[in-house]
Every structure is written in structure tokens, then in C-alpha cells.
């Protein structure tokens, strides 16, 4: 039965490649840099979606890192036991448990109206939906992945190391900064990678909040606050409407890119984790 798994992964990969063959053949690598996505005239370029995906994911990651590190340090070092710690840990896990569709739905009706006045103040068109709004929700959603790994790793720091530093007169902050964090640095990085993998592939919440335009703005401000599209969201929106082979295969090629990127990221992440936890 274990072979089934290998077959599934290989099957997924082959299916994606075979089905995206038409565009791979006709457009080649240039597909990824093409700036225009116009299915009606059969012009396909993935650049707007690449930018959209990278921008949302990394913005979300940047917002989430302080929180996930703080949670890791607090629950790993300051307060590893007791009811408060359990409560907080369960709450963090709950964040991951809430379906993304619910975050998206909430975002449309609560977050979007909140973002609009801010956009007016900044002098951008007040769509409400857009890359920025999607990133905020995405940031909350990916925190648990980095945090739960970080907690485990920080708890694994051998106490003799920390005690040694205390014995030399270090304060708690100095112990954390000079002993705990350097010791767990690679592992925490792996946690961030796993979060990134989640962010790249997250579909529903982003689809509902990003505004779904395939045109890309001219200035950074426009791109960042205006509506956009990610690879996952364009597939979700257009796959069932795609009516000719080339359109379908262009969308599947996006899926293929997404698959390959997440596989590589997860592979590296898991590699680091096994290395760190086995020592």
C-alpha cells in the first residue's frame, strides 16, 4: 500500500506535465515572463500571477514571522507548562483548524470595509480587496505552521547550555538571544519554509479577497493595494470556464509550477527538520 503513495505523487506529476504540454510546447519558458493574460485572444503570460503569488506570500510571511517567533519563544522558553500555556497552544492550533473558506468569507464582510478608508488615506483606489488584504488574512492563517514547530524545537534546547549561560551571569534575554536562538536557528527557518509552502498554495481565502484581476498595475503601490491574482486563485476562478485546450493547459502549467515549488520547499523544510530533531 505504500507504493500507492509513490504512485500518487508520480501520477500527479505526470498528469500535470502531460496536460500542460500544449502550452509548454508553444510558449516555452517565455510563458512565465509574459505580461499579458488574455484568454479571449489566446495570449497567455503568467507574470501577473507569479508576482501576485510572491507578493502575497512574502508579505504574509513578513507579517507572520514576529508572531510565530514570539509564540515559539513564549511557549518554548518562558512558559512551557501550565494551563495558560496549554490554552494558548490549543488556540494557535485552532487557527489552523478553521477552514480557509471561513477566513475568506469573514474577510469580505469585515476586513474589506475596514481596509477601504486606509486605502483612501494612502491615495490609492479604495477597492478594499487586493494583495494587501489577502496578505493580512494569509498571515494569520500560516502562523500555526511555523509556531508549532518552533515550540517543539525551542523546548529541545538542552538545559545545560542555558544553565551554563545563566551561570556566567547572562540575563534571560541574553540567554535567548545568544544560546536558544542560535541553537534553533536552522529549525526555525524550516518552520518559516513550511509556512511559506502553505502561503503559496493557499487558495480559497486568497481567491475571495484578492479581487481577481489578471491585469497588473503600473506602480508598486497599485500592485500592492490594488486587486490582483495569484496562481492558485486564477486556477480556482478560470479552470471551469476554460473552453479551449490551450487555455486549460495554460492554467494547468500554473498548477505544475505551484506543485514543483511547494514540493521543493517542503522537501527542504522536512530535510532540515529531520536533521535537527535527530541530533
Amino acid at each position, binding site marked *: 500500500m505504500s507504493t500507492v503513495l509513490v504512485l500518487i505523487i508520480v501520477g500527479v506529476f505526470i*498528469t500535470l506535465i502531460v496536460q500542460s504540454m500544449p502550452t509548454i510546447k508553444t510558449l516555452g519558458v517565455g510563458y512565465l515572463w509574459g505580461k499579458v493574460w488574455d484568454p479571449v485572444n489566446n495570449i497567455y503570460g503568467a507574470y501577473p500571477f507569479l508576482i501576485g503569488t510572491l507578493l502575497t506570500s512574502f508579505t504574509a510571511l513578513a507579517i507572520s514571522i514576529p508572531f510565530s517567533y514570539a509564540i515559539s519563544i513564549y511557549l518554548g522558553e518562558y512558559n512551557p507548562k501550565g494551563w495558560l500555556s496549554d490554552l494558548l497552544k490549543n488556540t494557535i492550533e485552532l487557527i489552523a*483548524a478553521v477552514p480557509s*473558506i471561513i477566513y475568506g468569507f469573514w474577510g469580505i464582510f469585515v476586513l474589506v470595509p475596514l481596509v477601504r478608508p486606509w486605502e483612501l488615506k494612502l491615495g490609492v483606489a479604495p477597492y478594499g480587496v487586493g494583495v494587501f488584504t489577502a496578505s493580512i488574512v494569509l498571515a494569520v492563517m500560516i502562523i500555526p505552521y511555523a509556531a508549532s514547530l518552533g515550540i517543539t524545537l525551542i523546548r529541545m534546547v538542552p538545559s545545560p547550555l542555558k544553565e551554563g549561560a545563566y551561570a556566567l551571569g547572562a540575563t534571560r534575554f541574553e540567554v535567548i538571544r545568544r544560546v536558544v536562538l542560535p541553537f534553533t536557528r536552522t529549525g526555525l527557518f524550516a518552520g518559516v519554509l513550511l509556512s511559506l509552502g502553505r502561503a503559496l*498554495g493557499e487558495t480559497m481565502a486568497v481567491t475571495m479577497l484578492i479581487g481577481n484581476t489578471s491585469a497588473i498595475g503600473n506602480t508598486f503601490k497599485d500592485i500592492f493595494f490594488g486587486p490582483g491574482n495569484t496562481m492558485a486563485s486564477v486556477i480556482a476562478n478560470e479552470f471551469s470556464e476554460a473552453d479551449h485546450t490551450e487555455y486549460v493547459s495554460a492554467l494547468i502549467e500554473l498548477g505544475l509550477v*505551484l506543485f514543483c515549488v511547494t514540493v521543493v520547499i517542503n522537501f527542504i523544510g522536512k530535510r532540515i527538520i529531520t536533521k535537527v530533531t535527530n541530533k
Partner: protein
Amino acid sequence: MEPRIGIRNFKSVLFKSVIIFFAFVITIPLIIVLLYIIKQGITQVNWHFLTHVPAPVGEAGGGIINALVGSFIMVGVAAIIAIPVGMMAGIYLSENPRTKLAYYSGLCVDILQGVPSIVVGIVAYFWVVKPLGTFSALSGSMALAIMMLPIVIRSTEQTLNLLPDSLKEAALSLGVPYHRVIIKVIVPCGFAGILSGITLSIARVIGETAPLLFTALGNSYLSVSLTKPMESLPHLIFTYATSPYDDWHNLAWGASFILLMFVLILNIVTKLLTRKWKIQL
């Protein structure tokens, strides 16, 4: 030269406060989301809501019976596909951890866990929808089953790894054949752990929308046929939440509330089961 101890202590306290601040602030969005969904949803839920199909635009009332039934059927079928495969693979991984096949399938479990759900949807479309020529509940179940597999496998494997070898050795020394040892000793002993993996995997996929978009598609009528399009809770929320009608939004709030309750209950059950087994999922 290190600065004076007063400053260093102050820095330490300051750092701790910042950490505590960030660690607790993140619970605020979750609480806001949960309260909002409960507030909006709970007023929608009543017997009528649970037993009727959605009303057309402009008509009051209507419910989500089609999505409830659809979600149950699809997740149920997905579980029937994923649980045996996942358990067997998990048993294999835990019994033969050093073989080449175990290494590669372990790797595949990790990869599968990270595959975006939308990609699973595309693949299920080509594996089931295309050959059958129609969108169907079965293809949705297939996609969900693929998403359930890694969780079931990992929980089975980890639970069985926690069992002491002496259990297995005792049974083997009594002359019990290997396959009976697995069925009668190993699996029953790790049952709670395996069960927790199953409940967790169900909790994960019951809220999945992306794999269902081009497989089960959705259906505004009650359908129990596996070969026809079927509605599901998350898909209903998606369609109605993005519609422009207030009545439909209300329906979606109610459905979100129900979905949230399912997810919460399944997670609590998982928690209770894992507390006994101390496994990390």
C-alpha cells in the same frame, strides 16, 4: 564592555513583555472571526434551515440540507477510500522503517502533505471527471481522500512506533502468525491513536473547498448519487458568499456556523484522543 546590569535587566524584561504581547495578540483575530461567525450564523440555524434546500433568490427561507448531506456522503466515501490505504501504509512504514520503499513513501507522504489543495483538484478532475465524462461526487471524494491520506498515515505510523516491542514479541513467541499479530495486537493497541488521526483528517477535509471546485462542482438540489454533481458545505459557502444577494449571504453565514461547529467538535475529539496517546500530529 557589557552595559550595566540595570540596563541589561531592563532589556530582558522589555523583551519578555514584547514576546508576551505578540504571542497573545494573535489570538485576537481568531476570537474575532469565531465570534463574528457565531453571531451571524446562529440566528440562521433552525429546523427549517437544516431540512430544506436553498430557496431561489427573492424567496425567504431555504436551508442547506443538500450541502449537509453532500458533505457527509463525500467525506464518508473519502474516508472509506483513505482509511484502509492510509492504515496499511502507516503499518508498513512503522514495521519496516529501514527499507527503500519506506524511505520513498515517507518522502511522498511529506510531499503530499504540502501539495496545494487546488492542484489535487486539478488532478482529480483529470483522473475521475474526464474519464467518466461528468462532474461527480465520486471525483470530489477522490480528491478529499488524497488529502486525508498523509494525516492518516502519519498518525498510524507514529502511534504504532510508540507501542513497546515487547507486545509484538510476546504475541510472536506464542506462535501467532505475523499478520494476526498486526490485526489482533498491534492495531487494537494503537486504536485510539489511529482514530485520532482519522478524526483529524476528517476535520481537515470537511472544510476544503478548492479540490471540490472542479470535481463535485455543486448542486442546488438534494442529490445522493455518487455519479452526479453534489453540493458540499464549503462549496455552498463559497458560491453564496460571493453572490450579491443578502438572503444568500445569510444562508452562507448559517452554513459557516454549522461547518465551524463540525470542525471544532472534530478537533476536540482529536484532542481528547491524543491526550491519551501523546502523539504529535
